[in-house]
């Protein structure tokens, strides 16, 4: 029966309750999606491999390292494999066709990154073709590329041909899916050697060298030891290096784009405030216009705590209904957003952690926003309330 009263009071103001429920739903959906994006974004850090290191110039990520460094690094005690990563900066078509491409060493890359799982084509076919490339499933879907298709790219970093605007052409030999969410599915990997040979033959211009080397260390070896050893190798130049664990490298790389998780969570915080005010407003209004009803109930013998709890429950109920709708909405939104965000937030998903976080926030705020009107209701004096004209 108190539930009957609760529900009746809620549907007694259908428009107001509906608006409140909808605002809670929209807010919670936004909160979940933002949280999922923030989590997805940092997945590259959170899920980075423990046994991989990255070597870059001590000056900056944009200063290339000499090619001669690789064999020296390879000889350091504890280094199992190395591979190159060269940023290509290519663009497909005139507009909107931007995605990441890296020149790599096919063999070591395959063994170092087991989370890159080919779902079409194979590493073998990739290795067998100088202009071959491996692309993410997301890219394949986005541009409709299939095995055997040619992908023409132009890049200001490595101008090609007399005009400098001739396209580089890559042939799709593999399509991968990320077996763990630390990798996105929007990247192209091609043979570094194809780039190097083109530069050496004068077919294209551009800086020699490599942006970064990645190292896989032997199991049981301490990463710090290897890092110190590699850094020590080039202490006297020509180009000093900095070696970091993959997680740290990813973190720094992400932070170059600004603190996106913080930004997203700040927006989420603002959204939470919106829930808070929407429900607080509704419940304050509800409590105020029901002053006489609540006074009557108290006169009948209902205690202050009961009356206060009733209003808190009502606000929790509004939140609950809004939350259920919000979760449905979040899944809908996530489905629409996934292709757009998974490139830079590879772990993007409305999973249990996201839902739990969203629901906990909503419940806490439902409680807080119900508290003010609840306390007010608890303090109502029946003699006063009954004197108010209904």
């Amino acid at each position, binding site marked *: *029966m108190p539930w009957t009263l609760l529900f009746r009071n809620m549907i007694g103001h259908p428009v107001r309750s509906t608006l409140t429920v909808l605002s809670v739903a929209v807010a919670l959906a936004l909160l979940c999606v933002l949280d999922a994006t923030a989590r997805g974004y940092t997945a590259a850090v959170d899920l980075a491999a423990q046994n991989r290191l990255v070597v870059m110039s001590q000056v900056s990520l944009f200063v290339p390292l000499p090619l001669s460094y690789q064999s020296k690094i390879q000889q350091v005690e504890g280094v199992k494999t190395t591979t190159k990563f060269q940023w290509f900066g290519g663009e497909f078509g005139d507009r909107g066709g931007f995605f990441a491409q890296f020149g790599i060493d096919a063999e070591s890359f395959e063994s170092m990154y087991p989370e890159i799982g080919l779902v079409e084509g194979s590493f073998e076919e990739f290795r067998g073709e100088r202009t071959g490339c491996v692309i993410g499933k997301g890219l394949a879907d986005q541009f409709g590329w299939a095995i055997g298709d040619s992908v023409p790219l132009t890049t200001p970093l490595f101008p090609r041909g007399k005009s400098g605007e001739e396209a580089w052409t890559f042939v799709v030999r593999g399509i991968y899916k990320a077996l763990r969410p630390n990798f996105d599915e929007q990247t192209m990997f091609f043979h570094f050697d194809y780039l190097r040979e083109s530069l050496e033959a004068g077919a294209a211009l551009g800086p020699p060298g490599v942006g970064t080397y990645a190292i896989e260390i032997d199991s049981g070896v301490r990463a710090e030891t290897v890092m110190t050893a590699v850094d020590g190798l080039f202490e006297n130049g020509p180009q000093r290096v900095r070696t970091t664990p993959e997680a740290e490298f990813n973190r720094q790389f992400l932070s170059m784009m600004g603190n996106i998780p913080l930004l997203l969570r700040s927006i989420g915080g603002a959204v939470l405030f919106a829930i808070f005010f929407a429900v607080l407003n509704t419940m304050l209004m509800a409590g105020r216009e029901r002053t006489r009803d609540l006074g*009557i109930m108290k006169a009948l013998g209902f205690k202050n705590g009961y009356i206060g709890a009733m209003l808190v429950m009502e606000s929790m109920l509004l939140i609950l209904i809004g939350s259920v709708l919000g979760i449905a909405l979040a899944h809908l939104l996530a489905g629409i957003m996934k292709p757009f965000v998974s490139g830079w937030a590879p772990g993007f998903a409305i999973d249990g952690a996201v839902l739990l976080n969203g629901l906990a926030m909503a419940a806490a705020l439902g409680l807080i926003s119900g508290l003010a009107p609840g306390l007010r209701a608890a303090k109502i004096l029946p003699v006063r309330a009954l004197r108010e004209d209904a």
Partner: protein
Amino acid sequence: MAVAITLRSVTKTYSRGGETLRVLDELDLDMDGGTFYALMGPSGSGKTTLLNLVGGLDHCDSGLVQVGGDDLNSLSASELAAWRSANVGFVFQGFNLLPVLSARENVELPLLLAPLSRKQRREQAERALELVGLKDRMKHKPRELSGGQEQRVAIARAIATDPQVLLADEPTGDLDRESADAVLQIMQRLNRELNKTVLMVTHDPQAATYADQTIHLDKGKLGGIEDNRTEAGAN
């Protein structure tokens, strides 16, 4: 076991804007159990205040308020709430019913505080509605009832828990003659057949004739008690 009401030297003041208003001024009053009292007096003479004290809705500043042997001043706010739910039924001035609940649900409301099953609550509420002649309207919302019917539902709610004391503040104030008579007859029956002690505030001398005795209140003091039964005795 009719419940008597005793007030000894009861004073109640309100302060408003620095001024102190003595609403009840050392009032002495004895009401017998099982008697129907009308309470009359000019507006502002303290009738509602008196009813609130007797009903345990408020504490007096000094003096003694005793209802059926219970000293209401000795009870805390929370104890008073429990006491009210067991001992008194109220019919308030003006709107009485919760607009979102049906007539039966309104009557069931005070029964939520009693250790009853859902079914028992329902039955008891329906019995109370039957007593006021509105069982056929139990599914109606207050706005679907006439003013007189609303007051009768309020009476049903007041007696649903079977309290021995019934307090009513101008229950017929907004009603036409015919509806008022129906309400008054019910109050009289509750007094005569169920031996409830009834205290009813009214402005209407004709309504007062339904009561056994009329208490006159004037500026917080007792103005006299007249016995209606000695006159014609027609009621």
